[in-house]
């Protein structure tokens, strides 16, 4: 594969190459899909030790204004007024037709300021969306800022030494701090299902920060391949695969990301894009729903595989799938009609024309180990 000059490089590019990273184009960037350790071992290393992920391709955006809460609440079904400073939440940008434009993590930095982390592939569109709908707020894309995720059971050991303040954070909390004299914004979050941290740092000090973290011998670079298998085992959605403009948050089984106060009976009910459709889905149910699957045997069932009922009728589609290194078995998720979206339902997935037995299962398949205090 040729390295297109159109693809951008993050600050860490040379580090990835030096570490033996296999660089591939991803969302307009050259990113490491794996290192010599391989996806299987990188995945296991992250769960039991500490994995360092370059997620600088993601969009970091700061939004500020006197009416920023009211304006942002028109774009996502969250109660941002109730979000405490340095508290963060998972959210979706909803569409006028009740679909999902992107998913994001939103953190309150101040009374009038929010910090958003959005998907790399959607960031330009998200920024335009924010600018259109937030006429009274300042939308500032932090294009001089890197983002790294330190994930896994032993991530906290590193942070407790380098920035003791961050070790007292609980899941979905953040703080401004310095790490070895480098100014950072650190949150206790990530997308692996493990305890961990995301660190936003100026491009100028990104490599110095990586040096500090990589000085720990149990901390290693981990590529996008293992990032995908980790989030899959953790039951977490990948935008553009497990949800998109054609799926509502209710269909995507992320209704938990809709604040109580924004629901039909809530005191700030509705008022966000697509609210009529999304609230109807919440109140009256949906025709199809995202579920997780256990797969019989060892053959992975991957995105795009059709799902059939026991009479052979195609009833749904797999939206993410692969082999789960922790589970040592294939893992998948996909959409099926509501009446089949019941734990224990036995179906088949068609892999190269052959039916493979799959069973609707509870997610996550590997228990999440977030630090909830």
């Amino acid at each position, binding site marked *: 594969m040729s390295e297109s000059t159109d693809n951008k490089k993050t600050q860490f590019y040379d580090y990835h190459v030096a570490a033996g990273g296999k660089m591939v184009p991803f969302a307009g960037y050259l990113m490491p*899909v*794996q290192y010599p350790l*391989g*996806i*299987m*071992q990188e*995945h296991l290393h992250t769960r039991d030790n500490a994995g360092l992920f370059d997620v600088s391709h993601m969009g970091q955006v700061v939004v500020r204004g006197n009416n920023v809460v009211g304006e942002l609440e028109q774009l996502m079904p969250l109660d941002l007024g109730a979000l405490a400073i340095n508290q963060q939440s998972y959210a979706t940008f909803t569409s006028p037709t009740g679909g999902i434009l992107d998913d994001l993590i939103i953190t309150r930095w101040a009374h009038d300021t929010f910090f958003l982390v959005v998907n790399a592939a959607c960031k330009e569109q998200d920024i335009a969306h924010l600018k259109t709908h937030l006429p009274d707020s300042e939308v500032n894309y932090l294009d001089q800022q890197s983002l790294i995720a330190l994930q896994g059971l032993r991530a906290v050991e590193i942070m407790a030494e380098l920035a003791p303040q961050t070790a007292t954070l609980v899941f979905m909390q953040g703080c401004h701090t310095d790490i070895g004299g480098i100014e950072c914004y650190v949150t206790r979050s990530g997308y692996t299902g493990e305890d961990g941290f995301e660190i936003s740092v100026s491009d100028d000090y990104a490599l110095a920060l990586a040096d500090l973290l990589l000085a720990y011998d149990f901390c290693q670079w981990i590529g996008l*391949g293992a990032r*995908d*298998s980790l989030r899959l085992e953790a039951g977490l959605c990948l935008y553009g695969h497990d949800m998109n403009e054609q799926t509502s948050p209710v269909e995507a089984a992320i209704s938990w990301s809709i604040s109580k106060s924004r629901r039909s009976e809530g005191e700030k009910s509705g008022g966000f894009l697509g609210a009529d459709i999304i609230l109807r889905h919440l109140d009256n149910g949906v025709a199809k729903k995202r579920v997780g699957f256990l797969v019989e*045997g*060892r*053959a*992975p069932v*991957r995105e795009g595989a059709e799902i059939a009922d026991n009479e052979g009728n195609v009833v749904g589609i797999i939206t993410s799938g*692969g*082999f789960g*290194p922790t589970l040592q078995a*294939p893992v998948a998720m996909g959409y099926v009609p509501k009446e089949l979206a019941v734990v224990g339902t036995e179906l088949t997935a068609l892999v*190269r024309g052959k039916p493979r037995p799959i069973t609707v299962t509870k997610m996550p398949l590997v228990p999440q180990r977030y630090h909830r205090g």
Partner: protein
Amino acid sequence: MDQVVYTKDHEWLRIEDNVVTIGVTEFAQEQLGDVVFIELPEVGSELSVGDEAAVIESVKAAGEIAVPIDGVVLTVNEALVDQPDLLNSAPETDGWIFQVSPSEALEMSDFMDAEQYQQFIQDGE
């Protein structure tokens, strides 16, 4: 006397009398990454050049093995069913995939010898 030749698809063929053993090379194994499942051909099936004979599933992706010769499948490596990672640890020995009885004499000019194959890999990088 046996002879080993290579294809541009990174397969190796060990030719002994009327039996050709087929597997993937060390280079292919590195590209594939951790192998978790191999769909083997059916013993007795008749294959023509280019047919999909086996599918190798790694953690990340599925790769197809196109058969490089016409022939009938004699045996498959059953050890790969329980130990698909043999394909990573010993791709050119214990990780062989299947054996074929060729329907006609092999045209050796279709293949590369070890030296030519090494050159082919180097040129490709």
